[in-house]
């Protein structure tokens, strides 16, 4: 059986930073397994930037960054983890700068910073509107430099552990179609988010299907705060493709059909730069109350107007956004406003992990969007995700290096591989009564209906029932492609099954959290309720296959909960 001291699953920002960290320790065998080639991961799609209190443009401090983050999270973030992240931010940004990351610069040569939603100062370091892309490229370059081993186009099937310690994973080499057990002393999951649950309207890549999160759930380990899904305010009208918050950071306006900058009603001070949950609700409210636009296909939207920024600024700071708007909407933002509507964007919840990425099983780590540390609480601030992935990727890498030097490999039973082979083989033998594409779309509709931007008990309960029904019906989805080589029919089916598993873990705690906090907004409980719900939800799957819900306290250091006004 193949074995590595440390196996990293996922090659986005968190996975690559973890890999870099481990590659500094000589003599360890480390591999990065990814279902796509490195640099394809969704980190690359992050556009606007990464937060750090460098204070290059205005005086700033890690404390202010931490406060903004905690307030943005609607006080659900664990404050010790937030403080650590914000404290590390300036150093890790400089570390990447020293690796060659091509940040945009001020005239004096220092890293430029732009304003972002929910931040008190221009704190977001950026490289035009391609920050994630160049970050991913830079980290990959450094991994090549350090000789990191990559298993490209491998798909994670399961995480194997004995209840106390991790012993490895089972994964499929997509190119050969073969299923392998991989033994490892430590496994770092950096598999990204799961907003593809909302298949029909999301900014996410096709593969953001929560593969690691679902594997952890199936392995009987806890997920945290799964009810919190961020809807980004500005997805393109037809496709939900992301238009960066940087567009508003640079001064873009949101306009309704009456020609108003409607944010004045919702966040008079911060206007378009209020946190994402508030801006998304504002847009949806405008549309619900009849002040949106409607096109001939029935798509409803508002406008993001950049015209007043002028040609030069748009070409210099937002070149990609301009091109996306032209290619996907036929609109040149220099000449016309961009039609936008909120789009499912980010998973605040995920694998329950502590501030070093450790899960309850020793040697198993989670970092990046698949993890819930939690630094984003009920709502993530723009620019904090690229920070989260590098900080916690690095820390998980460091801790894993220390861990593996003290332990031996655990035995890895062949039966674990057999079980996954049987699970995969059964998909070829299903009766095909249900169609993958139809069911995937149905799941998306149900989730948008029951667990979207506005939620209420009745709809959520209907959604839960429907999700469970879809889970049953999913047993009839058949893989028709009988070839082993690069069977994307099989891959898409496995990804869909992961989404089904995850959908249930979103709706269940959403029903039980009888309050509104951050992205979880309930029309039947419109107020935050700190007395009863200033706590993390935990979902686990028992041996009987049923989900169990419990709660866990929030870590509060010095920022006492207060009303969130912008």
């Amino acid at each position, binding site marked *: 059986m193949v074995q590595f001291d440390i196996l990293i699953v996922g090659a986005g920002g968190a996975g690559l930073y973890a890999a870099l960290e481990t590659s500094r320790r000589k003599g360890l065998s480390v591999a990065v397994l990814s279902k796509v080639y490195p640099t394809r991961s969704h980190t690359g799609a992050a556009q606007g930037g990464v937060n750090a209190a460098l204070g290059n443009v205005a005086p700033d401090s890690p404390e202010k960054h931490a406060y903004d983050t905690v307030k943005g999270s609607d006080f659900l973030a664990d404050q010790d983890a937030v403080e650590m992240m914000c404290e590390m931010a300036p150093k890790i940004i400089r570390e990447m700068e020293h690796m060659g990351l091509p940040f945009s610069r001020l005239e004096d040569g220092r890293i430029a910073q732009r304003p972002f939603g929910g931040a008190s100062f221009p704190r977001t370091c950026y490289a*035009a509107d391609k920050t994630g892309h160049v970050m991913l490229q830079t980290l990959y370059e450094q991994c090549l430099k350090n000789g990191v081993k990559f298993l490209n186009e491998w798909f994670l099937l399961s995480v194997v552990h004995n209840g106390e310690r991790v012993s490895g994973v089972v994964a499929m080499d997509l190119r050969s179609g073969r299923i392998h057990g991989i033994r490892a002393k430590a496994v770092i999951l950096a598999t990204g988010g799961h907003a593809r649950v909302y298949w029909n309207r999301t900014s996410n890549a096709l593969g953001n299907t929560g593969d690691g999160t679902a594997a952890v759930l199936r392995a009987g380990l806890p997920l945290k705060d799964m009810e919190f899904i961020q809807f980004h305010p500005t997805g393109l009208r037809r496709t939900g493709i992301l238009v960066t918050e940087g567009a508003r950071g640079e001064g873009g306006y949101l306009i309704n059909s009456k020609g108003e900058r409607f944010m004045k009603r919702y966040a008079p001070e911060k206007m378009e730069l209020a946190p994402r949950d508030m801006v998304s609700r504002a847009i949806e409210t405008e549309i619900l109350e009849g002040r949106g636009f409607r096109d001939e296909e029935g798509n409803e939207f508002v406008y993001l107007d950049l015209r007043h920024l002028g040609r030069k600024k748009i070409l210099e700071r937002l070149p990609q956004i301009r091109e996306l708007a032209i290619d996907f909407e036929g609109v040149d933002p220099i000449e016309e406003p961009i039609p936008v509507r909120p789009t499912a964007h980010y998973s605040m919840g995920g694998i329950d992990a502590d501030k070093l990425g450790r899960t309850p099983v020793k040697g198993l780590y989670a970092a990046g969007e698949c993890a819930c540390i939690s630094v984003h609480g009920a709502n993530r601030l723009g620019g904090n995700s690229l920070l989260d992935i590098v900080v916690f990727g690095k820390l998980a890498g460091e801790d894993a290096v220390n861990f593996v030097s003290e332990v031996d490999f655990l035995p890895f039973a062949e039966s674990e591989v057999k079980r996954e082979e049987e699970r995969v083989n059964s998909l070829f033998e299903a009766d095909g009564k249900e169609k993958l594409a139809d069911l995937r779309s149905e799941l998306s509709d149900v989730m948008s209906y029951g667990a979207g931007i506005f939620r209420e008990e009745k709809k959520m309960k209907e959604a839960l029932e429907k999700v469970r029904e879809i889970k049953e019906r999913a047993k009839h989805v058949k893989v028709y492609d009988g070839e082993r080589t690069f069977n994307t029919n099989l891959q898409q089916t496995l990804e869909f099954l992961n989404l089904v598993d995850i959908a249930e873990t979103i709706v269940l705690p959403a029903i039980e959290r009888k309050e509104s906090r951050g992205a979880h907004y309930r029309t039947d409980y419109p107020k935050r309720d700190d007395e009863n719900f200033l706590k993390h939800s935990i979902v686990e799957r028992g041996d009987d296959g049923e989900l169990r819900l419990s709660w866990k306290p929030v870590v509060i250091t010095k920022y006492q909960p207060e009303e969130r006004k912008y």
Partner: protein
Amino acid sequence: MEKREVLFRIRRFNPKRDEKPYYQEYRLTVPKGMTVLEALQQIKDTQDPTLAFRAFCRSAICGSCAVKVNGFPKLACKTQVFNELDKFGTDTLTLEPLDNMDVIRDLIVDWDRPFKRMEEMKPWLVPDPEVVPKTLDEESRVYPRELKKFDQFTDCILCTSCYSSCTATQLDDGYGGPFQLARVYRFAVDPRDALKAERSKIGYAFDMWNCVRCNKCADVCPKHVSPVDGIMKLRGLSIEVGLKDNPGARHVMAFYKSLLESGMLNEVLLPLRTKGVKGVLENLPVGIKMILKGKAHSPVMKPIAEHETLVKVMKVAMEVE
């Protein structure tokens, strides 16, 4: 809303099973705005689950989905079906895998070779201790005008479109490849890099002079990177660091000298200056024919009328660079 009946001819091939590639036809009703990628997924969802293609971000940043659409490399995710139909005046789109790489299955090609090649060319920053601070308490200073020199080349998403249409790659196994060489240049002009112009020696070792400047790499790049510009500049750097005694450098220098002397290209002296006596002998048969037909000019050329102005322009241009 406008809809059209479109015929998709898709090249299928599973090397494990098929003797050779074949084309399969699918008919699809396409609404306005639908991308090639959406069409592919719809065919997979409703007609043929065995169709194999790669896709990920669907917003033109991950580089997964490049395929040939009616013969030209395109990112499937950002290419609208109607635009292509209109461009070609047709109702048929032919989709094929990229060239210059082996097919793994259908539209999926084997990327190992181009990426391995890139790795051999060391495309990563080696920090210059004079510029990059020793501690994490400081940033290196990079001025906007310095960033501008290499920023364009950091847009590359490794989609391999340029590689697939590169003529030099097709003919020369030792050739570095367009995106790979452009990355070498990217680091050669990064003020933080310790190797700086010395990196052009890597370009030299990987046959950068074999680029024929056909410009295809620039034409097909979905991110407007224009690798050929990087390659040309990398050649310039190689002359600066002293790699002058080779046909490529001598050829460029011969052009330069010619222009300085007369303002015209001295085609008679060009073979001698580029390849020496060997070059003259190689070109002799053609040369004699040209002389006989009265097409060859004298080796001694009179300067053109505005020669002094030209020399001034050339000097200013070089200062700007």
